[in-house]
């Protein structure tokens, strides 16, 4: 069921769901530029099924072979931008191995095969007023569309962006433009260690209490956010990663140990019961 995308102009609004809610779409690449030394932003025209994507969902991207690499499995990438107006979806990705190296060879006009949207995205409890985002590294890609979602739901957003150095802090402008308050902490500035971040979060919460927390991209930040959410008795969610076989809930490769309400540890599939989990159930990784 490889669908071809309609030209973006013919799909200005969220299109009705396709015959199949998930599609393997041959998307036309619009741009694929580096955003800093490690990350690139890939924008592509998407079909109606793909445009139903929500914050926290992901796509399985076919990574083109290069003369050196022949990636076999697809690679999971969170949807970073959902632009229903222009019929585009975007991915912010770090070039790490053969799959992402392949992705980085795509040029405008090429075809990106993307299966999705996949998995469960973020859900904001009704009436949420102040959302805390805690992200590091690639976690930012996953959390960015949540700002859009929270603002649309009438909530304020404070985003803590942690990175090795200021050059690695991405999408601060994108987040700010969407109305989030952005606070950067970096290893080079020396304010990204857990003690300082904890103090920062407590101060922010004291100023204006959070009623929802979301995190992605760092195990230590996850532990901190989880502890504070419990202490503050607020809802929270974490977007998790796992090595994936299919991304479609079929192979059971992507399981993560989570704590069931009974207290016992069970496996859940990141691609199907996740990638967004309630922050209480996730353990560490």
């Amino acid at each position, binding site marked *: *069921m*490889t669908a071809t995308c309609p030209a973006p102009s013919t799909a200005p609004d969220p299109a009705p769901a396709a015959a*199949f*809610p*998930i*599609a*393997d779409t041959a998307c036309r690449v619009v741009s694929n530029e580096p955003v800093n030394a490690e990350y690139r932003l890939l924008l592509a025209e998407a079909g109606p099924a793909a445009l139903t994507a929500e914050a926290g969902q992901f796509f399985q991207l*076919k990574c083109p072979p290069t003369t050196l690499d*022949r*990636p*076999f*499995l*697809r690679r999971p990438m969170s949807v970073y931008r959902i632009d229903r107006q222009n019929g585009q979806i975007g991915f912010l990705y770090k070039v790490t191995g053969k799959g992402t190296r392949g992705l980085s060879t795509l040029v405008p006009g090429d075809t990106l095969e993307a*299966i999705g949207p996949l998995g469960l995205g973020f859900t904001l409890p009704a009436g949420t007023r102040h959302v805390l985002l805690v992200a590091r590294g690639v976690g930012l890609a996953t959390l960015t569309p949540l700002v859009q979602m929270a603002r649309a739901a009438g909530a304020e957003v404070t985003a803590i962006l942690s990175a090795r150095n200021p050059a690695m802090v991405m999408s601060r402008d994108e987040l700010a433009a969407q109305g989030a308050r952005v606070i950067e902490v970096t290893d080079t500035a020396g304010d990204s260690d857990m003690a300082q971040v904890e103090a920062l979060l407590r101060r922010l919460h004291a100023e204006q209490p959070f009623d929802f927390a979301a995190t992605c991209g760092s195990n230590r930040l996850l532990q901190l956010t989880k502890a504070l959410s419990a202490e503050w008795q607020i809802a929270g969610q974490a977007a998790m990663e*796992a*090595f*994936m*076989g*299919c*991304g*479609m*809930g*079929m*192979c*059971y*490769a*992507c*399981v*993560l140990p989570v704590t069931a309400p009974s207290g016992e540890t*069970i*496996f859940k599939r990141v691609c*199907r019961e996740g990638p967004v989990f309630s922050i209480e159930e996730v353990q560490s990784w």
Partner: protein
Amino acid sequence: MVDLSVQIGSVTLRNPVMPASGTIAEGFAEIVDLGRLGAIVLKTITPDIRQGTQPPRVAEFTDATLFSIGIPSKGPDYLLESTLPVYAGFGVPVVASVSADSVEDFGTLAAYISAPGVAAIEANVSCPNLRAHGQAFGMDPEATAEVIRAMKARTDTPIWAKLTPNVGDIAQIARAAEAAGADALVVSNALLGMAVDAENMRPRLGNVIGGLTGNAVKPVILRMVHQVAQAVSIPIIGCGGIANGEDAVEYLLAGATAVQFGTVNFIEPAAMEDAIAWIEAYCRRHGVTEVRALTGAMSPRHDQKSPLQSAVL
């Protein structure tokens, strides 16, 4: 018009293409039209409820993957109450797959799940026989035969024996399964493999050993289908490294009546549908009016075959 239908014992498939056990799940119906397949094969279940192996569960190679999942299973009641209804509406035969730790449990489970919506039951004998020091049933002809006999004794639903390729003489196992009453043979499950990360000096899978699947294994399993086809007269379903119509036709020529697509479903959800179209075009191109005529139609390369076929190198 090409007649794509094939007959697996008493089960008629509208075409020879079906998924391999454990490589599709409910979610697949959200992406492709399962109604176009020859059959739908479900993931193996066990009598008990299982969580499976420790992650990481997958490693990747060129044209191949190593998976170690460990048959997570929600048990037979979940199959009957939740899984079967999902697949009931496609008008396609649904094949269940079972595994167990003992011969008796294979029989009991087969009887338990012999519901109207189950067209056949695959016996996944690649799992360890707890009475034989954990050696897989499928590695021993007698244990394989016992499993099939126990299942045939407890149900009238057709039984397909899915053999393990991790054996010396696959033809011997195939003959044992046929003699025990198997209605068809699936050749085969996955070769066992392993991967080590040299830099961190650890196995790449949580379970150390996993199943090697994907296109790279095709030459090995194709050879087994050829060997089994010379040994039995029940239908053979080829499975191993099939990714497209051409791979499927190679299996048919080597002696298979139908084929199962596995790992490729994870990468190209449209692979099975595309293959059905390719096979039809292939038949037309070669003037073949019935796809079943391809089964075993490979002509030998030379007039006589080497009597020493296994002294290959």
